[in-house]
């Protein structure tokens, strides 16, 4: 069992709490960066997609896990980020400018939707975001002069100072770098007053207000950060598929994002990553499963969301903490062996607390 001897306040503040963390994460980084050396192009492409999903998942995680607001329409932010980036590049803006600008524009759209959304409790917010996603999709379809409607927009590989990243492994490394930057940014926010304010709003709005937290402002900030991060992921998606059309970002993607959050485990950066890996690997398993299942089941169009749905239901019923929760339990088991008790993580019987009195 590891006991931490803290000698300064900085020990609590910094990200790597002890040497062990540093060692394992360094190892992980080396493995991630050297993946192109061992895997072939197809798998590198899939890995890049996992990384992109992880970025989007982090975006959603910031909103759902930390500030406690549910969004069902995050695909809309993917779309806004993707289209902004693609259209700016088409107009001649260099990638290194278009990319962050796309993030900022998406963040602003997040702030926009949060203006009405701020007055709503969790439930209404979820519905409002769903409505928002549907409206955005319609705008993308009808605003043909800008978005090309159903004809779509072609997107080249990202262009860094004249060098185009057509190689799958180059693109993968770009995504990886973005992911790492986003993770660091999110972790920094969370250990600073802004992050604390967001968590405070989730737990008790009234007392957060009395402590000086401007509720509306921080809800908007959470939404903007979440939207911005997701927008960046969307921009990268555009480059990955080399093509954008309004139905690229459909309800399936929103579901996959949710699946990531549920499966990965809520409220943690690790959770988003695990979730992304799971969601990325799923289509492969699905393809395999399709060969085994009888045709009546295998051919039905609704199979993919159906299976996703089933997985989510099972997780929520049996492992609400997600994969990260399961990992923590396993780690704890080894940490305090042989003192682990089955009841350590068992939730107390929970009763319905009405949300109508907030």
């Amino acid at each position, binding site marked *: 069992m590891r006991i931490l001897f803290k000698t300064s306040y900085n020990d609590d503040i910094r990200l790597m709490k002890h040497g062990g963390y540093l060692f394992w994460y360094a190892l992980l980084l080396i493995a991630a960066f050297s993946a192109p050396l061992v895997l072939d192009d197809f798998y590198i492409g899939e890995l890049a997609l996992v990384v992109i999903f992880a970025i989007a998942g982090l975006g959603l995680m910031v909103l759902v896990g930390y500030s406690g607001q*549910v969004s069902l329409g995050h695909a809309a932010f993917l779309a806004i980020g993707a289209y902004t980036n693609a259209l700016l590049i088409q107009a001649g803006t260099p990638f290194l400018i278009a990319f962050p600008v796309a993030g900022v524009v998406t963040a602003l759209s997040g702030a926009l939707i949060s203006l009405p959304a701020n007055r709503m409790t969790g439930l209404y917010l979820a519905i409002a975001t769903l*409505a928002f996603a549907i409206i955005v999709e319609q705008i993308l379809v009808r605003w043909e002069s800008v978005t090309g409607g159903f004809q779509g927009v072609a997107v080249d590989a990202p262009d860094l100072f004249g060098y185009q990243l057509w190689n799958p492994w180059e693109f993968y490394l770009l995504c990886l770098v973005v992911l790492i930057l986003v993770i660091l940014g999110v972790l920094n926010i969370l250990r600073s007053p802004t992050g604390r304010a967001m968590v405070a709003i989730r737990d008790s709005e009234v007392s957060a207000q009395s402590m000086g937290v401007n509720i509306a402002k921080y809800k908007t900030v959470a939404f903007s950060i979440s939207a911005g991060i997701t927008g960046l992921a969307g921009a990268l998606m555009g480059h990955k598929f080399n093509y954008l059309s309004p139905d690229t970002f459909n309800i399936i993607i929103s579901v996959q994002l949710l699946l990531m959050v549920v499966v990965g485990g809520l409220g943690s950066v690790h959770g988003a990553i695990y979730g992304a890996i799971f969601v990325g690997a799923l289509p492969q398993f699905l393809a395999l499963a399709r060969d085994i299942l009888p045709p*009546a089941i295998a051919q039905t169009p609704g199979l993919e969301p159906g299976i996703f749905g089933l997985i989510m239901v099972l997780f929520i019923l049996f492992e609400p903490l997600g994969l990260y929760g399961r990992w923590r339990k396993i780690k704890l088991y080894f940490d305090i062996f042989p003192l682990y008790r089955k009841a350590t993580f068992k939730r107390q019987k*929970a009763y319905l607390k009405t949300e109508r009195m907030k």
Partner: protein
Amino acid sequence: MQILVSGIAQGCVYGLIALGFVLIYKATEIVNFAQGDMMMLGAFTALSFIGFLGVDYWLGFFFAILCMAVFGYLLDKIVLRYVIGQPQFAIVILTISLGFIFRALAGIFWGHEPSSFNTPFTNQIVNLGGVIIAQEALSIIIGTVLLAVLLYIFFTHTKLGVAMQASSQNQLAAYYMGIPVKVIFSLIWAISAGVSTVAGVLLSPISLIDAEMGFMGIKAFAAAVVGGFGSLPGALLGGAIIGISEQLAGAYLPAGFKQITAFVIMLAVLTIRPEGLFAQIQRKKV
């Protein structure tokens, strides 16, 4: 005038689905995102009885409601009971996922060809003082009104209805009062499933039955929101408002506006008067 009637009829369908939501929400504070899909299942069940087995319309209707009520009851007993007390969004994701599963199952069992069955109202018209109205539309409106009255009497004048309201506001206290909370919740789900089935069967003459029917459930949300989530008459009124607005948008505004009318109205209501027409949410006393 035609527009008005089809608007009200469509609105009644939205209203009925919304009614199903609100019932479940009032009792258990669960938002059932799979409500539209339950309507779809109800319509398919009726199809099996009436269309495939050749049972008489009214009898088939009744059996379908019964089957779906049992289904709703079991759904609560086996799945939903275990998530009470979990954070709101986990439940939201759960019901959305259930919706997906229902759609996939419907595709597997009933195939993906849109179908329909014959009702006493198909292709019949009625002449009301010079205005020609399709009987189908009229049947929807009348059916909705009847159901609403029935439910109203149930909730205000029976012990069960009052018990349902108690369980929703404070579950622990309801237990202490001897209310069999779990059974009541399951009954609510049963009723809600039944109401959705009615919506599905009434709708079937107008639109074909297929696995994607449930998507209008999202618009039914808008109806519930407009009416004030938690108010039964509000749900119906909200449905009517949205139904009529949609038809007007389809007739007078350029293409594409019809699809988003429901959502624009909903966002507007949420911004201006979030509690909807009949407010149900209060501020906590600290």
